[in-house]
């Protein structure tokens, strides 16, 4: 493999990985506070692409306005899901909340199928996304560069928010110990709503960027990215935001490199994340950056 091809694959992998990271952060934040696998996150991701799509195609908005509206609508969707389907069940055994989550996920997915139709639709991309650039002798599609330029500052900004602001501190406290943080005067409902707003907004950014990278959207597109992003969160250590980002980058790079170096296995590409999940659960179940926790009654 030539050096140029290697660098192209590297950028490709980093791009995919940063998208996984964006989605994984939403999973890991919710899991950190509520100990809940938010299955609907993949569908939130899917809806964001459709919001953006309809903004451009039906309301003929310029793409940047459509994207902003899509991000706002997606955040609202995320908060609504939490208020309607998770909050009333907070005091019940965990299995009920999980069933509610999978129910909402499946409901949204099928609602998408009924409302938008099962046929994949071509996502209208802005002109400059489709060009090809040459950087240091390596030809790369602009979409990779744009995604990296947008996503990496967002991830760094999120870390800054979590570790340098009061609200971020409240969030980390809530995920450290739910009950004690309430005793310390943290408004836990507000923190949870904020978690869902941030997580869904990030999923929306991820979704819109995903649509730039793979410009074909359909109502079941949320399933695999959602599942893989959760695996990334587990891989990096669930509840740990930095870990989710690391896990995302790892999986993105690994998937692209696997196909690049072993093209015979490209049919099994989607299976790779799953093998990664089983391996990490067997070898280091807390994930790369996770800490050992003790289950208390």
């Amino acid at each position, binding site marked *: 493999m030539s050096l140029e091809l290697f660098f192209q694959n590297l950028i490709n992998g980093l791009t995919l990985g940063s998208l996984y990271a964006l989605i994984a952060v939403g999973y890991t934040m919710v899991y950190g506070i509520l100990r809940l696998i938010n299955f609907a996150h993949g569908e939130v991701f899917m809806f964001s692409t459709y919001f953006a799509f309809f903004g451009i195609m039906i309301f003929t908005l310029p793409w940047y306005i459509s994207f902003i509206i899509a991000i706002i609508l997606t955040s609202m969707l995320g908060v609504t899901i939490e208020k309607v*389907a998770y909050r009333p069940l907070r005091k019940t055994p*965990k299995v009920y909340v999980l*069933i509610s989550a*999978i*129910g909402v996920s499946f*409901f949204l997915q099928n609602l998408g199928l009924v409302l938008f139709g*099962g046929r994949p639709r071509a996502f209208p991309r802005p002109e400059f996304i489709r060009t090809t650039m040459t950087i240091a002798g390596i030809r790369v599609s602009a979409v990779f560069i744009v995604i990296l330029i947008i996503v990496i500052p967002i991830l760094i900004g999120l870390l800054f928010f979590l570790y340098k602001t009061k609200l971020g501190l409240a969030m980390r406290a809530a995920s450290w110990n739910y009950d004690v943080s309430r005793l310390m005067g943290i408004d836990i409902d507000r923190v949870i709503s904020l978690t869902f707003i941030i997580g869904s907004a990030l999923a929306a950014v991820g979704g819109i960027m995903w649509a730039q990278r793979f410009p074909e959207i359909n109502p079941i597109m949320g399933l695999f990215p959602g599942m893989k992003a959760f695996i990334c969160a587990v891989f990096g250590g669930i509840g740990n935001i930095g870990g989710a980002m690391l896990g995302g980058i790892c999986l993105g790079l690994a998937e692209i490199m696997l196909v690049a170096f072993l093209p015979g296995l490209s049919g099994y590409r989607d299976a790779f994340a*799953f093998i990664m999940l089983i391996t990490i659960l067997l070898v280091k*179940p807390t994930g790369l950056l996770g800490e050992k926790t003790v289950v208390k009654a």
Partner: protein
Amino acid sequence: MIEKIYNRLFIPIVIIIVGLFLYWGNSNLTGYQIRILNLIGIYIGIALGLNLVNGLTGQFSLGVAGFMAIGAYTTAILTMSPQIKQMVYFIDPLISPLDRIQWGFLPALLMAGLLSGFAALLIGWPAFKFRDDYLAVTTLGFAEILRVIFTNTRSITNGALGLKAIPETTNLAWTWGFAIICVLLMIRLKNSNFGRSIIAIRENEVAAEAMGIPLFYYKNLAHVIAGAMAGVGGGLLGNLITTIDPNMFRFPLTFTVLLMVVIGGMGSITGTVIGATLVASSLEILRRIEEPIHILNLTIPGIPGMRMVIFAGTLVIVILFYRTGIMGEKEFSRKAVWNKLNKIFKQSSPDGGENNAS
């Protein structure tokens, strides 16, 4: 004494009534109705397996479709005759030992149960080792990945083309035999040491462990039994509809079974049977809204996919507002019926309690 004899006779009588109804149905119902009855029987068995994991043990498995796929493919490959196999696998021939052997239906089904139970062990092991809510993701991932794998391993599963011309060996005797065996097995399990232990795990894991219940072992055991039941059910399903392909075993299938368990009341055997019957029949009844309806000269176009929207909405509503489902934790037993009758006739009986079928 009389009480004991009544208790002993209760289950055989119920079985005989079901058997008589099926015997009558086999010759008097239309093919379509018999098909639905077959599906109900299969789903009862599979749903009872899921109930064991989700309802009784309090874990959350989402791998039903995957285990069914393993069972269906195993049974189909083992029961197809070598000539038909040659015809079906026209792109990539089936690998060596499998293309010549042909087993009977029963050993093939047992093999299906064995293999899917083994798969359940492989998937449950890493998940239960750490946090059990990872079981949901490992099983869901497993079911989806299995589809990818089955599409790629053309020399075993015939890839995306699927298998055709599977011998139609499943009939009412097989499906309802399976259902009844599963019900009896569940009654035995629920009232055994194992059953009480897994209920203790559901109620309070830490306390159960303190009482000396081996969590890891019992969770795995429940998951393996459920996997094996789904595998046998999948085998019956494959040989009922005679064609299978990897896309048949997708998430909606798992979801349907989950809905059966939740609607019936998680943890209740009777509830699961009722839930399976309700959901499996409404799966067929609701087919109408997906097809165009003609009223006089007016044609209302059907809405494809609406069934699953209704199912998903139902599940969320049941979980939010009627968490106990139809039966809650209760069971249909002779005592429960007796007590109800007594209450109606104002003769209160001394032995209250409408729990467990005995």
